[in-house]
């Protein structure tokens, strides 16, 4: 029996437009992209040029600091464009699929025959290594590091997040293979967290070779960072790795089939989405292929969830780690006397300053800021949505001040942006808290 951890702090956002459990679209690969910007701490070195033909699994770019670490094309076709931004920063490598579905074949040995070194080489060579993220800081895992353990959350609490029991129901064997592979990388074991309320109902409790944990509570209880904080918090000098469950399946598929196959079932959801449901897509799919879900009006298309996803636009691409697209109306309207309206029945607030806490309904949330930016004033709102042993306000202020010692003391190693996203959501001063944490992390990485 696994231990059960009950979290009280947090918030399940009552946002309308949850995806219905059916696959309504199968996207055959057309234009896809791999975006170096998805990978923190990585400096890309381009390995292809426009017009090159590639297969699924052909390296597109590698990490300058670790040339063995390659990032592969998810489809076969030709390199359509190399997109660069300011100072020639590499933003994306686009591949136009040719429909031949050719893939680089790898000789896959038995998982049990590989030691840590062999497994690391295998994952690096196949382009699967970037599936592993490293804490502190949420960078791509460092192949040289000795992780204390590997953590996987099998519980998706993100607003409108994909239901993994549904999207991964045919991938159980692949997930098992993925877990076995990850188990070769660490002596600390692979930890898997399940939702307590659905423990027995979930197929995932049949997996073997993992240390189970059960979590109960509102978002961010499903965030792997929060789970680590309760299972085995990260101390100075320690390193842990995390993998998201859909990517464990991708790793497993490689060992079962010998090819790089990063297809996934994603949730397309949100208050503005047409017929919110699931779609089977290649990795890095172009949003244009999902246009059936998007209304004509002014909407924001987010790769990831509404709290910490990236707005990519109607011709953007799905992020490497994402298995969800959120569609929101742009809130660029004025609201007369909104702040003084006693009811404001169309908007949700976690604060009891509005009567929203009396209503049980889902809200058509949009992207309006609902106020102007102010200095920090309220001090008890952040704590209520961060179920970690951390004083959030003090951590934010240490990041703002750029005080490295304080940041370290107050727990910067234990959080990434997604863990404090709810703090930003509830902030009555409308402060960009994820940006503060991001800049804090970047400063730490630069100075260390």
């Amino acid at each position, binding site marked *: 029996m696994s231990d059960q951890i009950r979290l009280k702090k947090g918030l399940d956002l009552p946002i309308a437009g949850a995806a219905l459990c059916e696959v309504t679209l199968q996207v055959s690969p057309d234009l896809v992209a791999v975006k170096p910007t998805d990978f923190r701490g990585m400096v890309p070195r381009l390995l292809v040029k426009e017009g090159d033909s590639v297969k699924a699994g052909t390296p597109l770019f590698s990490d300058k600091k670790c040339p063995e670490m390659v990032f592969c094309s998810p489809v076969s076709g030709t390199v359509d464009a190399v997109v660069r931004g300011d100072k020639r920063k590499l933003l994306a490598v686009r591949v136009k699929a040719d429909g031949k579905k050719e893939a680089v074949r790898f000789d896959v040995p038995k998982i049990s025959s590989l030691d840590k070194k062999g497994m690391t080489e295998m994952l690096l060579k196949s382009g699967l290594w970037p599936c592993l993220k490293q804490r502190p800081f949420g960078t791509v895992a460092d192949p040289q590091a000795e992780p204390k353990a590997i953590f996987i959350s099998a519980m998706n609490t993100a607003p409108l997040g994909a239901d993994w029991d549904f999207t991964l129901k045919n991938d159980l064997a692949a997930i098992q293979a993925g877990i076995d592979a990850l188990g070769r990388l660490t002596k600390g074991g692979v930890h898997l967290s399940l939702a307590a309320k659905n423990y027995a109902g979930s197929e995932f409790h049949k997996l073997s070779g993992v240390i189970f944990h059960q979590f109960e509570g509102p978002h961010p209880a499903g965030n792997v960072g929060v789970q680590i904080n309760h299972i085995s918090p990260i101390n*100075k000098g320690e390193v842990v790795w995390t993998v998201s469950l859909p990517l464990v399946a991708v790793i497993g598929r490689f060992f079962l089939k010998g090819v790089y196959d990063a297809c996934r079932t994603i949730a397309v959801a949100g208050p503005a989405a047409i017929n919110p449901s699931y779609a089977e897509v290649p990795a890095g799919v172009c949003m244009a292929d999902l246009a059936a879900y998007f209304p004509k009006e002014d909407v924001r298309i987010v790769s990831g969830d*509404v*709290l910490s996803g990236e707005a990519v636009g109607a011709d953007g691409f799905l992020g490497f780690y994402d298995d969800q697209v959120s569609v929101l109306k742009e*809130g660029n309207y004025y609201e007369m006397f909104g702040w003084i309206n006693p009811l404001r029945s169309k908007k949700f607030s976690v*604060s009891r300053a509005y009567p929203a806490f009396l209503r049980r309904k889902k809200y058509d949330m949009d992207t309006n800021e609902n106020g*102007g930016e102010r200095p920090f004033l309220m001090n008890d709102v952040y704590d209520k949505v961060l179920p970690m042993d951390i004083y959030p306000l003090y951590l934010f202020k240490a990041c703002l001040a750029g005080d490295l010692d304080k940041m370290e003391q107050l727990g910067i190693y234990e959080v990434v942006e997604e863990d404090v996203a709810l703090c930003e959501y509830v902030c009555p001063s409308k402060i960009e808290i994820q940006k503060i944490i991001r800049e804090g992390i970047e400063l730490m990485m630069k100075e260390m």
Partner: protein
Amino acid sequence: MAKNFFDKVRPTFSEGGKLSWLHSSFDAFETFFFVPNRTTRKGGTHVKDCVDLKRLLIIVVIALMPALLFGIWNLGFQHSKVFGLGWGFWQMVWYGFVKIIPLYLISYIVGLGIEFASAQMKGHEVSEGYLVSGFIIPLIVPVDVPWWMLAIAVAFAVIIGKEVFGGTGMNIWNPALLARAFLFFSYPSKMSGDSIWVGGLNKALAGGTPWKGGEVVDALSGATPLSHASLDGLSAAGTSAWNLFLGDIPGAVGETSVIAILLGALILLCTGVASWKIMCSSVLGALFVGWLGTSFGVTDIPCWEQLLMGGFAFGTVFMATDPVTSAQTETGKWIYGFLIGALCITVRLFNPGYPEGMMLAILLMNTFAPLIDHYVVSANVNRRLKRAKTV
């Protein structure tokens, strides 16, 4: 309609417009009428809670309303009583209204004027923090305070107490209390004594103006019950615990009626705007020291009656709970509140020359709140360090 007006004048105030230097002020007025059309920014959450500071602060103002309305009536009631005028209800309200309006005008014109100017200079949006401070100040000063003194006190509180630290959210001391403290220490003759708490009384005494029913003054020469801080003294002044609770006694406009303040407390607690921990622990602290006082024979006033007297209730509900100047950590709030209550009653018991301890208790604890927080946060830091060693 209003929207059209703002749309029409916006270019004038935007960058490149004739009055672009007044942008902050324009923005303050526009956002008062309309929640702006700004959308969430890149790299942040894409949706946001609909609560903002305007909403939270207007709730504090609403919570202050019962105390203000009662205080307006009470101004007239006290005046009528002392001068033996035998006024009716509306006459009393009118008197109080006429007395309080200039104080509000001064408080807001001077205070907001400085806030606007300062926001303008920094190019920030105008913060709403002063709406509450400016609303509290007239409630805690003697109603006959000379207007120029009030103006100076407000200017001092806003400039020295707030803007030099960086404005709303950065100040160490509660600005409203700072204004009162400034008045108290700079112009003690206008701020203490028996006659200042009844409108018109001081002037009448000084000018020797004859008034109807002059004999009443003898029975009421002690203005606030705190000047008679013993059971005998209270009953001699004709003040019962019920009077203290109801608030039909002389005193600063907002602070006399515990029942009106409790209404405000109810609003603040139901909406979660103020910390129940601070209120609760402040009451506990006051009860504790009040109980010690009676146990050791320092006073014969039962500890619960201390809660009804003077500015304790008002300070606990509206000023100790100021989120900027109070302790920021949840554990810290218990300590901070308890010490405020305890210090307030301690000052009351041992300093006959200065019976009202709430103002100084809060200002002192404002000063020490960061220290309390420092130790609470250090405990968390040490826990983290210890964890690293044991693993």
